[in-house]
C-alpha cells in the first residue's frame, strides 16, 4: 500500500510537472498544447539567403534587383513587416495568446497583431493585406497555420526578397521543450519562386517579459524612397 502511494505520488508529481513544464493539460479532453508566452528569436538573421541562391522567377529577380535595404525597405517608412517577415527575420519579441477560437500573436516592433482563426476556412475574395488571412488547426502537438490573402508590399526578409499576392505560407509551430518554440515555414509563390522556400525559426521563451509599446513613427530619421 505504501509503495503504491509513493508510486501514485511520484506519478502525480510527474504528471503535474509535465503539465506545468509544457503548460498544458493533455489529460483533459479537447486540450491542446500551450504555446502561449513571450518569445524571442534565438538567432537573428535578417536574410533568408545570406549567401544568395534564392530560386527567383525572372519576374522576382527583376523586382529583387530594384530593392535596396538602404533606401526602399518598407520598414524605413515604418510600414508593417507583415507575414512571414516578422516571424522569420525580426529581432523583437512576440507574445502568443491562445483562445479556443483564435491564436493571437502580438509583435513588438513594428507593432503588429496577427490573428490565426482556429475554426473556419479562408473567406472567398480576400482583400490583400500585410498579414494575410491565417487559419490554424492542431495536428497532435503541432499548430499548422495556413495563410493566404497577402498584399505584395512586404519583403520576405530584411534582404529584399519580394513576393506576389499569390504567396501561400504554411507554418508548423511546435513547442519542442518548455523554453523552445520552432516554426517551420513553407513559402509557396509560383509567381516569384520556381520552387517553395522552406525556412525554420527557433524562438526562446522569455519569462517575465512584457510586450512594450513601439511607435515607429515617433522619431524615425530614416527616409523611405519607395513609391
Amino acid at each position: 500500500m505504501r509503495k503504491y502511494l509513493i508510486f501514485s505520488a511520484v506519478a502525480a508529481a510527474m504528471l503535474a510537472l509535465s503539465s506545468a513544464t509544457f503548460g498544458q493539460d493533455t489529460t483533459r479532453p479537447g486540450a491542446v498544447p500551450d504555446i502561449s508566452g513571450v518569445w524571442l528569436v534565438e538567432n537573428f538573421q535578417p536574410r533568408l539567403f545570406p549567401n544568395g541562391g534564392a530560386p527567383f522567377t525572372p519576374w522576382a529577380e527583376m523586382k529583387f534587383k530594384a530593392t535596396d535595404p538602404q533606401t526602399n525597405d518598407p520598414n524605413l517608412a515604418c510600414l508593417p513587416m507583415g507575414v512571414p517577415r516578422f516571424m522569420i527575420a525580426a529581432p523583437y519579441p512576440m507574445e502568443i495568446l491562445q483562445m479556443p477560437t483564435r491564436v493571437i500573436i502580438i509583435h513588438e516592433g513594428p507593432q503588429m497583431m496577427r490573428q490565426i482563426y482556429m475554426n473556419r476556412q479562408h473567406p472567398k475574395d480576400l482583400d490583400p493585406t500585410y498579414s494575410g488571412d491565417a487559419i490554424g488547426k492542431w495536428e497532435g502537438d503541432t499548430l499548422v497555420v495556413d495563410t493566404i490573402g497577402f498584399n505584395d508590399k512586404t519583403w520576405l526578409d530584411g534582404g529584399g526578397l519580394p513576393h506576389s499576392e499569390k504567396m501561400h505560407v504554411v507554418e508548423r509551430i511546435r513547442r519542442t521543450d518548455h523554453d523552445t518554440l520552432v516554426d517551420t515555414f513553407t513559402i509557396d509563390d509560383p509567381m516569384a519562386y520556381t520552387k517553395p522556400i522552406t525556412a525554420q525559426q527557433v524562438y526562446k521563451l522569455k519569462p517575465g517579459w512584457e510586450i512594450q509599446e513601439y511607435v515607429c513613427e515617433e522619431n524615425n530619421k530614416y527616409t523611405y524612397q519607395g513609391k
Partner: protein
Amino acid sequence: MRNHLLVFPATAVLLLLSFAGATYAHHANASFDMTNSATVKGTVTGFDWTNPHAYIYLDVKGKDAVEKWSVEMGSIGMLARAGWRRDTVKPGDEITVIGNRAKDGKTFLRLSKLVFSNGQELTTTVQ
C-alpha cells in the same frame, strides 16, 4: 578630434554584437563600418528616449572646434531589457561611446557600449 576617435579591428566586438545588432533591425547596417570599432568621448547634450531608435547627442572637443555627434541605439523596449532607462544619460554627463561609425564619415555612431565617467559600462545587448 583625433585624440578622441580610435579605430581598431574589432573581431571581439563584432562577436559581442552578434545579437545586439538585432536591436537595429529597423534598418540595415550597411551604412555603418561594421568591421571597425570607434571610440568617442564627449559631453551629452541630449537624449531621445524614443522609437524606432534612441539617440544620444554629444559635443566632442576637437583641436579647433566642437564636433556634434549623434549616437544611435535600438528600440527603447529592447534597451530597457538591456538595463537602460529614460534617464540613463543626462545633458552634461561626460561619457565614452563605443560602436560603429557611419561609412560616409559623418559624426554618427551606432552604439555597442557606453562607458560612464566613473568607469561603469552599459551595453545594448539583451542578456
